[in-house]
């Protein structure tokens, strides 16, 4: 697969896996309104992933005439090591604090990324991001409010946020380490190198953490990690997610509603 298609799949996979994780809350939210909120965010993200998968599929079909890849093939028939989403996105939901923090980290990143990609020289990528950025801004607002509410809430909610920070901390650095497909995307003007977003990401996160009475994050260098979602080396958690998400298409190929 060419690197630019992989770049597009990376965006699609991030949105799909985040969307799927959020959809696991449907029917289990702490209160009805927030159950609906997470389900709506899931819907937005899965919609964004569909746009990216359709774009990737049309590229792949163009390069390999005779093949016919669809968005569903890309979402439902690829295996764990073919997915290019961040390790952050596949982390299990845990409690409400962890789900909120995962969304907050991801939306902060996605918002900064889309802000750059609306200027992409690849018109279809720019169009998808122009469409999506308004949704992402809203997710960011919602998750920021919850980080503040939990961080600056009760002793219990504050403790749970501290625990969530500890659990998700190891997966932040991956967001900003460029992968081969990101070098290619940046070189062709289709995308950007993510290390350029790092400073602003920490700035935005810490701004909200300060209001939330949570300790500031530091971007210290981490020892080399073996896991890298961008390289297809995932945590164990993605396998279980795919087993659930892909079951129907694998057991009953081609089935539709």
């Amino acid at each position, binding site marked *: 697969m060419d690197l630019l298609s992989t770049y597009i799949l990376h965006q699609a996979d991030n949105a799909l896996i985040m969307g799927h994780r959020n959809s696991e809350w449907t029917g289990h939210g702490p209160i009805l309104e927030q159950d*609906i909120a997470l389900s*709506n965010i899931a819907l937005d993200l899965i919609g964004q992933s569909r746009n990216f998968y359709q774009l990737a599929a049309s590229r792949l079909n163009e390069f390999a005439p005779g093949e016919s890849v669809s968005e569903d093939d890309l979402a439902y028939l690829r295996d764990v090591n073919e997915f290019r989403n961040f390790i952050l996105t596949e982390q299990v939901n845990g409690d409400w604090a962890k789900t909120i923090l995962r969304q907050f980290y991801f939306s902060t990143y996605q918002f900064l990324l889309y802000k750059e990609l609306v200027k992409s020289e690849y018109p279809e990528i720019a169009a998808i991001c122009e469409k999506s950025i308004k949704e992402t801004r809203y997710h960011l607002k919602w998750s920021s409010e919850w980080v503040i509410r939990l961080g600056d809430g009760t002793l219990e909610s504050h403790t749970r946020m501290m625990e969530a920070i500890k659990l998700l901390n190891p997966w932040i650095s991956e967001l900003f380490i460029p992968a081969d497909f990101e070098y290619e995307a940046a070189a062709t003007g289709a995308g950007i190198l993510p290390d350029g977003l790092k400073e602003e990401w920490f700035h935005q996160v810490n701004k909200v953490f300060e209001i939330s009475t949570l300790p500031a994050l530091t971007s210290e260098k981490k020892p080399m990690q073996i896991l890298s979602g961008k390289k297809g080396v995932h945590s164990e958690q993605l396998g279980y997610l795919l087993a659930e998400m892909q079951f129907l298409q694998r057991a009953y190929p081609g089935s539709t509603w």
Partner: protein
Amino acid sequence: MNEEQIINILSEVKDPEIPVLTISDLGILRAVECAGDTIKIQITPTYSGCPAMEIIQEDIRTVLAKHGLDRVEIKQILSPAWTSDWMSEAGKQKLRAYGIAAPSDHACFLNGEDQPQSCPHCLSKNIEMISRFGSTACKALYRCLDCLEPFDYFKCH
């Protein structure tokens, strides 16, 4: 048949989730072109994951087929992205009459707080947000502190 007549016929197609709005009111019908005996239609989603898009496409085909038009190509486009500014004034009035507060401002890159101008039932400005997310992706949930009715708000987006 010309484009204007087709647009007229398409005013029968409503948003399945807000059945008082036509797809023109909502601003998601972007273009209609008669190319020989084929009708080419462009529509755009309000939100990336809007589940109504497929039903709307089916409804367009059904309505046109009733008028004997079955060579129809429907294309979904993303750019320029839909914003709530594409909704017509008539559409906003229909929303209010239906009990949904209409988007109160221009959507172009909002930074401040977006909220409805008033309760669609009693017009009181004494309102509060219940939830940023409502019954569909495009709405938030509010309540009126005077008449005490909850209501949906079609967000500036």
